[in-house]
C-alpha cells in the first residue's frame, strides 16, 4: 500500500431549498404522494418550455461564493442527452462549458490541522425522478418498474472538487465541511436521507510522490458519509491489489455493496456515454454584474470558520467550545443571543453544550426552534449567579422550562425550587438532623471540623437541595454552640 497514494475527487449534488422546482412551479415536498407534484413541464409533455427559478440562481450563487468560487460573468444552460425512464425529456438541463462558478476551495480540518481542497466548479442542474422497483405479487406483472416524477426538476447544484483529497478520512472531512457551510448559508438541508445531498467519488492510485494521475474508478450513489469513507477504503485496497499484482485499473463506474463491504463494476455493455451536450435553446443566457455578485456576497452570513475564530477571540472561549457552538448557525445564533443579555460567555457555553444541546437533540430540534428562549436561559444563568438557586437546581429547572416553555422564575415558583434563605424555615430540618446524629455532634465538639460538612449534607438532603448551604453551616454552628 505504501508504494501508492490515493487521489480522490468528489462530486456532490446538493438540492437547493426553494419552494418550487428549477424550471416549473411544482412544489417541492419530501414524501409526497407519487407524481402529485408534477406538471406538463416537468413531465416533459410535448410543447412545454422551461422557465428558470430566480431564487434557485440566488441560492446557487450564494453557495458558490461561500465556497470561494469565481462567479461567471456569463453563464448558460446546456442539454445533457441520455435515455432513462426517470428523465422524462430524455435530456437533463444542466451546465456544461459556461457554468455558474469556477475555481473555489474548501477549508477542511483533519488531524487538528486545516487544509484547502480545490473546487473546480459549481453548476446548476435539474434532478431526475425516482424508479421504484415493484414488490412481487399484488397483481404486478414481473419485470415492471414504477416511476415517480415528484423529484424530477428539483433544483440541484453540483459541486465538483479537484482531485486533491488524500484519502477516505479526508473525504469524510471534506463532506462534513461542505455540509456545514451549505447548511450555514441556508442553501440546503443537506439531508442525505431525503436525498438533498448525494455524493459520487472518483478515486485513483498513483506511485507515492508522483504528480501524474492514475486511471480512476467512479463510485456512484454513496448514501452516507460513512459509506463514502468505507467504499473509498475498499476501492483503494482493490486498486492497490490490482496494481501490485501487475494488473491495470480500468476506467469504469462502480457501485458499493455495504453489506459485503465491496465495490463492484457497473460497466454497461453499451458504447461509452456520449451525452451530446449542446446549448439549451429554450433558455436565454444569464449575465452577472459585479453589483449582483457584491450584493450576494454582502448577503452571505458569517461562515463557520470565521465565526469559530471570533468566538474564541471575542468571548474567550476554548477552541472546543467555539467549534461545538458554531457547528450550526442556529446554535451559534442562540449562544450570541444569550450572551447579548450580559450572561457570562463560558457559563452560557457550558450550559448550552450540556443541557440545551442534549434536550434539543432528543427532541430532534435545531436551536432556532428551541422551546427555551435565549432570554429565558439568560435569566436562569442570572438567577444562579445571584445565588437564588444553586447550579444543581438549575439543572432541574431547565428540563421543565424545555417542556413548558415557561420562564425560569415561574418554574422555580411553581415547583418551590428557590433556595431556603431564611433561618427560621431551616430550624425544623436542622433540629431533626441534630437529633438523628448525636455522634457527629460529638465529633465536631471534639474538634473534627469535617463533621460539620457531613451535617450540612444531611440538611441539604432533607431540604432536597433547596437550602443555602452557607446559611445551613452557620445555623448548625449556632445550634451546636447553644447545645
Amino acid at each position, binding site marked *: 500500500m505504501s508504494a501508492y497514494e490515493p487521489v480522490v475527487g468528489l462530486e456532490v449534488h446538493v438540492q437547493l431549498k426553494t419552494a418550487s422546482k428549477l424550471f416549473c412551479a411544482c412544489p417541492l415536498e419530501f414524501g409526497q404522494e407519487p407524481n402529485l407534484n408534477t406538471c*406538463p413541464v416537468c*413531465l*416533459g*409533455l*410535448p*410543447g*412545454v*418550455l*422551461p*422557465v*428558470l427559478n430566480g431564487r434557485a440562481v440566488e441560492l446557487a450563487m450564494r453557495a458558490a461564493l461561500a465556497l470561494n468560487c469565481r462567479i461567471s460573468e456569463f453563464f448558460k444552460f446546456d*442539454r445533457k*442527452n441520455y*435515455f432513462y*425512464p426517470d428523465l*422524462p*425529456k*430524455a*435530456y437533463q438541463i444542466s451546465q456544461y462549458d459556461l457554468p455558474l462558478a469556477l475555481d473555489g476551495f474548501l477549508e477542511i480540518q483533519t488531524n487538528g490541522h486545516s487544509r484547502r481542497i480545490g473546487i473546480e466548479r459549481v453548476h446548476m442542474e435539474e434532478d431526475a425522478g425516482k424508479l421504484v422497483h415493484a414488490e412481487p405479487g399484488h397483481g404486478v406483472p414481473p*419485470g415492471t*418498474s414504477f*416511476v415517480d416524477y415528484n423529484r424530477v426538476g428539483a433544483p440541484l447544484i453540483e459541486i465538483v472538487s479537484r482531485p486533491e483529497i488524500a484519502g477516505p478520512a479526508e473525504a469524510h472531512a471534506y463532506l462534513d465541511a461542505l455540509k456545514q457551510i451549505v447548511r450555514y448559508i441556508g442553501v440546503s438541508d443537506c439531508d442525505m436521507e431525503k436525498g438533498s445531498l448525494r455524493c459520487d467519488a472518483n478515486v485513483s492510485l498513483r506511485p507515492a510522490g508522483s504528480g501524474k494521475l492514475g486511471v480512476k474508478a467512479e463510485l456512484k450513489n454513496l448514501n452516507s458519509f460513512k459509506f463514502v469513507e468505507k467504499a473509498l477504503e475498499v476501492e483503494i485496497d482493490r486498486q492497490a491489489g490490482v496494481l501490485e499484482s501487475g494488473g491495470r485499473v480500468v476506467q469504469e463506474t462502480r457501485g458499493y455493496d455495504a453489506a459485503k463491504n465491496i465495490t463492484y463494476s457497473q460497466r454497461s455493455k453499451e458504447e461509452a456515454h*456520449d451525452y*451530446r*451536450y*449542446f446549448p439549451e*435553446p*429554450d*433558455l*436565454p443566457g444569464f449575465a452577472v454584474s459585479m453589483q449582483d455578485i457584491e450584493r450576494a456576497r454582502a448577503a452571505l452570513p458569517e461562515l463557520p470558520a470565521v465565526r469559530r475564530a471570533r468566538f474564541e477571540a471575542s468571548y474567550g472561549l476554548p477552541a472546543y467550545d467555539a467549534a461545538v457552538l458554531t457547528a450550526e448557525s442556529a446554535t451559534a445564533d442562540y449562544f450570541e443571543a444569550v450572551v447579548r443579555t450580559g450572561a457570562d460567555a463560558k457559563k452560557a457555553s457550558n450550559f448550552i453544550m450540556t443541557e440545551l444541546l442534549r434536550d434539543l437533540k432528543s427532541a430532534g430540534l435545531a436551536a432556532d426552534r428551541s422551546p427555551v428562549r435565549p432570554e429565558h436561559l439568560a435569566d436562569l444563568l442570572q438567577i444562579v449567579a445571584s445565588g437564588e438557586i444553586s447550579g444543581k437546581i438549575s439543572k432541574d429547572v431547565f428540563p421543565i422550562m424545555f417542556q413548558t416553555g415557561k420562564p425560569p422564575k415561574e418554574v422555580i415558583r411553581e415547583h418551590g425550587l428557590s433556595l431556603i434563605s431564611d433561618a427560621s424555615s431551616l430550624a425544623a430540618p436542622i433540629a431533626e438532623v441534630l437529633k438523628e446524629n448525636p455522634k457527629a455532634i460529638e465529633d465536631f465538639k471534639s474538634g473534627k471540623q469535617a463533621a460539620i460538612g457531613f451535617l450540612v449534607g444531611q440538611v441539604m438532603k432533607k431540604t432536597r437541595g433547596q437550602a443555602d448551604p452557607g446559611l445551613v453551616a452557620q445555623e448548625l454552628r449556632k445550634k451546636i454552640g447553644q447545645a
Partner: protein
Amino acid sequence: MIPTLTAAEMADRVRSGDLRAAEICEARLAHIREHDPAVRAFVTVMEPEALKAAEEVDLRRKSGVALSPLAGVPIALKDNLCTRGVETTCSSKILKGFIPPYDAAVVERLRAGGSPFLGKTNLDEFAMGSSTENSALFLTRNPHDPDRVPGGSSGGSACAVAADFAPLALGSDTGGSIRQPAAFCGVVGLKPTYGRVSRYGLIAFASSLDQIGPFARTARDAALLLDAIAGPDPRDSTCLPDPPPAFAQALDRPFEKIRVGLPKEYFGEGLTGPVTSALDRLKSELKDLGCELKDVSLPHTSCAIPVYYLIAPAEASSNLARYDGVQYGLRVETKDLIQQYFKTRSEGFGREVKRRIMLGTFALSSGYYDAYYLKALKVRRLIYEDFMKAFADVDVLLTPTTPTPAFRFGEKVADPLQMYLSDIFTISANLAGLPAISFPCGFDGALPIGAQLIGPALSEGRLLRIVHEYQKNSDWHLRRPRLARRDASRVGTAA
C-alpha cells in the same frame, strides 16, 4: 355569400349582429364536409367544439358583452399546436392518442377571444418537410391542382385558407413552413420575429428556429390574427417582453416611402421563368407604389441550407428524444426497456424524422460537434450579420418565396437534398430570427406564385403594411381555386 368574406368582415358582422357566429361556423363546417374529402386539410374536424364556441360568442353579444376583435371568426390550427382535450398528433404515429391536458399559449388566447376552432390540420410529421408528404396520416392536396403538393410543413393550414375552409389558420415556421405552403397555395403567410409569439404548447421541432404565425387571404386578416397571438408570455423564456404594437390598426397609416432591397443571391439560377416574370412585375408595381428598389448582397446565402440542416436536426434529435413510449403516445411493448425504446421509436417515427434524428445525433456526437454543430453556429452568425449590413441600407428585402410553384407528388421525396433545396429562400430568415411574409404575386397557369418580404427584427408591421398596400392595388390574393368534389384516395398514398 359567406365564403368570400374576410376574417375582418366576419368579425364586423358578428359584432354588428348581421351574422351569427354560429351561422358562419356552420357554413364553414358544411364547406369542409363537402370539399375536405378531396383536399384533406384536416386531421381532426372539431365540429361540436367549434359550434359551441360560436354559440357562446353569440350569447356574449346578446348579453351586451364587448367582443374581442376576432370573436366568432373560425380558425384552423396546425396539428402541432396543443389543444386541451383534443388529440394532437403532429401527423405522427408516435403521438397517436396524445391528448394534451393544456392549450398552447396561442390557442389559449384565441379561445379566450372567442375563436371557434374548426379543427387540426395536416402537416409533415413533426413539421419536418416541405410538401406535407411526410405526414404519417395521409396526403393533403393543393386546392389549385390536386396532383400537386400544398407545400409544407404547414400544408393543411395553407390549404384550409386557400380552400375557404377557414378565413384564418395558424401554422409554424422553422425553415419556411408557413411561407412556402402559403406561396404554393396562393395565400398570405407570415413568420413573425423569433420571440414575438409564445412557443408554449407548440410541439418543438427546432427550438431556436420555430415560430408560430398566421395564414390568411389578406394582410389585414393576418394582422388581426397576429394581434391576437403576439406578445409576452411568462411560460416561454424566449418570448420577447415588449408589448407588440397594434398591427391591424397601423395598416391604414399613410404609406411612406420604403427602400426595398433585392438580394442578388435570390434572383440567380434555379428560378423558373414564370417566377422571374411575376417578380419582375411585382418590382415595377412596388415602384409605382412609391418604393425605392436597391440591389443588395447577402454573401453567405449559400450557407443557409447547410447551417439549417445541422442546427435544426441537432435540436430536433434532442426535442424528439422524449418520445419513448413511457408517459404518452405510442408504446411498443417489449420485455425490457431498452428494446421498448428502440421498437417504439422505430415504429413510431417516419422516414424523414428518422433521417433528421440521425443527422442531428451525428452532428452533436463526440468527435463531430466542433466540425459540424459548432461550425454551423458560427456561420449562423455570419448569415445574421449579412442581414444587419443589408438593413443599414434598405428597410425590407424582396425575394421570391420559392424557386418554383408547387411541385408534383413524389417529385422530390426520393432525394432529400432536392427537397431541402426547395426551402432555399425561406431558411435564412429563421436562422437570423427575422420576420418574413409570403404573399401571392402571380400565377403560373393554375399555380400561385409567392413573393417574400424579409424585414429587420420586429418589423412585422412594416411587412404587413407593404402587402396591404399591394393588395389594395392587385387581385392575386382574391383568385380562388376551383374545388373538385372527389375522393382524395385517387392519387398516391402517404409517405
